[in-house]
């Protein structure tokens, strides 16, 4: 068994070295495609963070002062619920101090200066308002602007439908272009790994011929090649992962160096999302390697 393993690795390593440029090209292409995929996932997550305040159809937020009494809050709620033709009352949601603080953590992740200023004593609480699908924008604007004067403790009413549109469109463009590039490059990576394995098998066709003649099984012949492809995918994924983590760190520190309140605060990705991305990149890299080498090893074994 040990001799078998050492045979497999010895052969694989020799083959990797012999085909150096093709191997390098395959690894580079796999790495770049996975890197772009990783970036895409992070950028989309940034957009989602930025838009998360507005998720679920929320188009209007009424900010209420931190020290509003339950009675004052009820007045606001009543006012909002008095317009069921314009506002979807079932989806009306109130974020109390804790929920608002939790949201701020996400929104100002890249803007610690602003975040520091928000405490349980001063953070505004919010009513998130989903309009009826057929409510006219003008009517909504009119109602919204009247709240600030009419209702107690209301700090401001946010109704940034334009920016939301722009951001969502941008998100769509970025998603489309980057996924397209990723897909094309991943395809190229599969082709290349397929090709390095084909080349590796061709370079060793005399050995393969002899192996078959002395009675080696097909699996015995195939495994080192498949492993070789797997490792190319894996190495590509490892490079990509390093790149993605570095890029994320670089971007986070760039955003933190922006002036406070630049509007990019939510555009950083935190928590263990980057680790998840890396995990999936590595899985995908190995998959790409396995597909490329597996098909090549099956196809060219009977030549």
């Amino acid at each position, binding site marked *: 068994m040990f001799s*078998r393993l050492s045979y497999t690795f010895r052969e694989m390593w020799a083959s990797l070295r012999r085909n150096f440029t093709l191997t390098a090209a395959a690894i580079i292409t796999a790495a770049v495609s996975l890197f772009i995929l990783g970036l895409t996932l992070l950028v989309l997550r940034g957009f989602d963070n930025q838009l998360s305040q507005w998720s679920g159809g929320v188009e209007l937020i009424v900010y209420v002062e931190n020290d509003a009494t339950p009675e004052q809050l009820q007045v606001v709620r009543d006012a909002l619920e008095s317009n069921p033709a314009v506002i979807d009352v079932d989806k009306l949601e109130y974020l109390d101090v804790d929920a608002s603080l939790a949201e701020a953590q996400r929104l100002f992740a890249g803007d610690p200066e602003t975040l520091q200023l928000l405490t349980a004593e001063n953070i505004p609480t919010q009513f998130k308002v989903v309009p009826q699908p057929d409510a006219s924008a003008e009517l909504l604007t009119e109602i919204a602007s009247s709240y600030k004067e009419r209702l107690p403790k209301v700090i401001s009413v946010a109704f940034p439908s334009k920016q939301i549109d722009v951001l969502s469109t941008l998100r769509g463009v970025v998603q489309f272009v980057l996924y397209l590039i990723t897909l094309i490059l991943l395809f190229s990576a599969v082709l290349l790994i397929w090709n390095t394995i084909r080349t590796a098998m061709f370079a060793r066709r*005399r*050995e393969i*011929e*002899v192996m*078959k*003649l002395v*009675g*080696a099984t097909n699996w015995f012949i195939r495994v080192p090649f498949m492993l070789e492809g797997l490792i190319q995918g894996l190495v590509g994924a490892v490079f990509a992962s390093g790149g993605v983590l570095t890029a994320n760190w670089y971007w986070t520190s760039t955003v933190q160096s922006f002036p406070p309140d630049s509007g990019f605060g939510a555009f950083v990705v935190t928590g263990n999302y980057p680790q998840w991305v890396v995990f999936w990149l590595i899985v995908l890299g190995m998959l790409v390697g396995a597909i490329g080498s597996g098909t090549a090893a099956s196809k060219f074994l009977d030549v």
Partner: protein
Amino acid sequence: MIKLENVTKSYSTEVTALQDASFDVAKAEFVFLVGPSGSGKSTLLRLMNRQEKPEKGEVWVAGRNINDMPDAKVPHLRRNIGNIFQDYKLLANKTVFENVAFALEVIGRPKHVIRQQVPAVLDLVGLSGKQERFPHQLSGGEQQRVSIARAFVNRPLILLADEPTGNLDPTTGEGIMRLLDRINKTGTTVVMATHDQRIVNMMRKRVIQLDRGIIVRDQARGVYE
């Protein structure tokens, strides 16, 4: 040991490489296949280790019909058959020892078996002092001895040799023939394709002669003609 029954094989519609060939080879027999270029000698040998499948007829090796043997069993069939070629088919980047050991390694023989059997077979073919040389550091005859050692190290029942003396000068070729004869005397069946007149005439073994895919002569203790 080997039995062909009405075997026909053609590669394309134009060429029939072998037509209705039938014969029997007994255990420990030595058979020459002779005939002009393209008459089907190599094809016959390739049918015997399932490198090719016939269109018609049956091929039996060691008591088994190898036509309807599943592909997965073929490696085990081949472990009973040694192959020798005109161009030796040695691996240039491996030493003599490694070339022979390779044949055992790839069928999963443990290290201690390899360390014991390889020197023994190299001794048999007369190369004990040259274990660490590479093929290009050997004469053609010596290279052919390495390839015989590789074919024989697993003690196969059958040796198939396709013009093993084709690249060798007459003296060296004779040495190879004496070695094959010695191996044959240990009980190994040998089938050898050749067009070396001198050698066939010298050995006086059974001769099967082909002409354009047809067996035209099958003679015990025959000559080249």
